[in-house]
């Protein structure tokens, strides 16, 4: 029988130069770092570089640089001029997009198709969008002449390294803040390449400072008295620790935390499109997505046919070398994350839930997990309650729309949700009932700099993106200011 297998289509990595080790980027230049640790390619465990672990002296230096730049340069520069720097950064990121994409895929393990088509273009778009805001802050909705906070301490996760950097840095700079950014321990390389972009853009020294390290570095940054505003994306557990840490201070925080999104398929939904949405919802970026559609809610009368169609579709998911342009599902970002996914999945087995994965060959080296679904899941199962942050879907059913909403909202999280139906009024009704900050109707996992993103309840504080996100980096001079 003739088969139509894909030939390998590897993206060349020759466009990328990785130094054997890096320091920190402080006050416009790279400085020596200490206590280096390895950053590895999770798809083959190759050591890519040695990353410095910032201690209190490094954090202090970076915060002081940011404070100096804030007072001398950035806060007094007209918005029009600030904006031009952001435009420059956006353009340089576009110019070097391929380099960023390959580096992101090497460091993170995500498919090149996603880093090339989503992460990097969106990151550049965030800078371009916010560049235009820099001289229009009077129109954000906070009254005339809103003020920046000062120095923003920003801590980002490993799932979308450069994109999360852009979500944090672009609005902060547009609003007139200076920043100290700490990328995630396992994915620092694109942030360090971004430091070079800042140099090429001739961004004034100290406006952006990048220090690498682990959670201890993040805690030092949160606790530093010279930081005025914290922006964090990561786990709900760490988000709560940050909320406690800043309680006795004047620091403000935005927190983008975990999720356990429901993706609801009503019986009138176009099943083939919904299946694409389910796959995109949970297998995009290996499921390392806080807003992943990790709880599939199927109306009972279409459950069987939808699961069958989903299985057929899942058998077509190509798992493997992230640099291959045909790869759909890349590597799990770290050994630690892989063991978390494995242990939560095992809890599903232990609780008697049925697990299924398509036949799929996983590479021998690196960290891999097959696309997986659990059927017959109940709301009490751990896999229906806890964020797995991997390519693992829990499938539940419902009979009535009211039951769907009740199940969807039965979680301490409230980041996102999906609705699939051909009936407009039902979509709008469900969107109204769902307690989540982002609702995707007949689509899923769409992001845009103009679109506010963020959650209800324990999914965090505040929004990122759009006018709502920008306002989190500004203080009003008018009534209603908080004590």
């Amino acid at each position: 029988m003739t088969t139509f297998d894909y030939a390998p289509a590897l993206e060349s990595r020759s466009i990328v130069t990785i130094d054997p080790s890096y320091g920190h980027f402080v006050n416009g230049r790279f400085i020596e770092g200490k206590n280096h640790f390895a950053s590895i390619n999770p798809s083959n465990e190759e050591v890519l570089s040695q990353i410095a672990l910032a201690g209190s002296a490094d954090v202090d230096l970076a915060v002081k640089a940011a404070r100096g730049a804030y007072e001398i340069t950035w806060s007094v520069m007209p918005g029009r001029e600030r904006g031009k720097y952001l435009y420059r950064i956006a353009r340089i990121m576009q110019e070097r997009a391929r380099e960023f994409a390959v580096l992101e895929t090497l460091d993170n393990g995500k498919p090149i198709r996603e880093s090339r088509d989503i992460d990097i273009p969106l990151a550049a778009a965030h800078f371009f969008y916010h560049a235009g805001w820099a001289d229009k802050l009077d129109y954000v909705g906070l009254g005339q002449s809103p003020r920046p906070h000062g120095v923003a301490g920003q801590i980002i996760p490993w799932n979308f390294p450069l994109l999360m950097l852009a979500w944090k840095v672009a609005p902060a700079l547009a609003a007139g803040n200076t920043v100290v950014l700490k990328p995630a321990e396992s994915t620092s390389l694109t942030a360090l390449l971004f430091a070079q972009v800042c140099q090429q853009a001739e961004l004034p020294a100290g406006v952006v400072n990048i220090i690498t390290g682990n959670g201890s570095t993040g805690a030092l940054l949160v606790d530093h008295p010279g930081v005025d505003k914290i922006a964090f994306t990561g786990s709900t557990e760490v988000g709560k620790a940050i909320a406690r840490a800043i309680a006795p201070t004047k620091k403000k925080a935005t927190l983008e935390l975990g999720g356990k999104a429901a993706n609801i398929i009503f019986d009138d939904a176009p099943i083939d499109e919904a299946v694409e949405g389910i796959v995109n919802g949970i297998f995009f970026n290996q499921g390392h997505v806080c807003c992943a559609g990790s709880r599939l809610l199927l109306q009972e009368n279409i459950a069987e046919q939808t699961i069958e169609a989903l299985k057929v579709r899942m058998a077509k998911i190509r798992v493997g070398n992230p640099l291959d342009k045909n790869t759909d599902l890349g590597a799990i970002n770290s050994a630690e994350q892989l063991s978390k996914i494995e242990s939560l999945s095992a809890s599903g087995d232990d609780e008697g839930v049925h697990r299924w994965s398509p036949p799929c060959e996983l590479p021998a080296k690196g960290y891999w997990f097959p696309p997986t679904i659990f059927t017959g899941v109940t709301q009490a199962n751990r896999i229906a309650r806890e964020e797995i942050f991997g390519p693992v879907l829990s499938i539940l059913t419902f009979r009535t729309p009211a039951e769907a909403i009740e199940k969807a909202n039965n979680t301490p999280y409230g980041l996102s949700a999906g609705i699939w139906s051909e009936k407009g009024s039902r979509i709008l009704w469900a969107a109204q009932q769902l307690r989540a900050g982002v609702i995707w109707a007949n689509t899923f996992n769409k992001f845009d700099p103009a679109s506010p993103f963020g959650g209800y309840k324990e999914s965090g504080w505040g929004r990122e993106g759009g006018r709502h996100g920008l306002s989190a980096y500004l203080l009003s001079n008018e009534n209603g200011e908080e004590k």
Partner: protein
Amino acid sequence: MSERIEVKKTYKLFIGGAFPRSESGRTYEIFAPDGSFIANPSLASRKDLRDAVVAARAAHAGWTAATAYNRGQILYRIAEMLEGRADQFAREIASLEGINEQDALQEVHSAIDQWVWYAGWSDKLSSIAGSTNQVSGPFYNFTIPEAMGVVAAIAPESPSLLGLVNAIAPIIVSGNTTIVLASTRSPLPAITFAEVLATSDLPHGVINILTGNKSELTPWFASHMDINGLDISGLEDSQMVNDVKIAGADNLKRIHSFHESASPQRILSFMEAKTIWHPIGI
């Protein structure tokens, strides 16, 4: 002819539209500045708070689903009822706070006007805080502000009525339901206010009012896992503020306190932005 003996009022809590005593059976004494006895209001307990949260949560679905026009009318109706009782409030405030009745009446008028100001916001919030977002793709994308759920408040010690109004009105006008802890020293106008609410078409449980000891109850407000937001404008002790923020982190409560009394920001701080995407196509 003998002097007429006044019929005095029993001041109780306001939970779920009813006026129960504290389940604990406790009361505390309120004295006028000259030392004369005024009343024995309820000293609410943690259990009373929990009952009030249950009532507020149960009321939320209906209140948030009511049209903004309807909520605005009910709030305005409350102002009408307040106006009718202005003199009663003024006498109560004057006796409790030791100010003259003229000044007390001034406070009552300010409170009523403030309430009306907030009432008018009900159907304008999406206009000022919502947006349609120009995303780069064939999607209709819009953001609307939405009530957060159950939002509690610690009202300031004084002004007792105006402080209460500033706490409650911005929370409920958007569709939240609330539990408010009244001024500990001057709790009586809050209970009289509850009598206004009981005659104003306000659905039961939308506003619940507790009287009691601030330092005893505040930690339970902070740690309650079914309270989504908390206005602590009425807390003065900075240690207590810290403790509230730390305990509130357990469910990431939105905790705010405000300088200003009349501001849409007070409303919006207790709303969530919801963004909805839908494809555009044939």
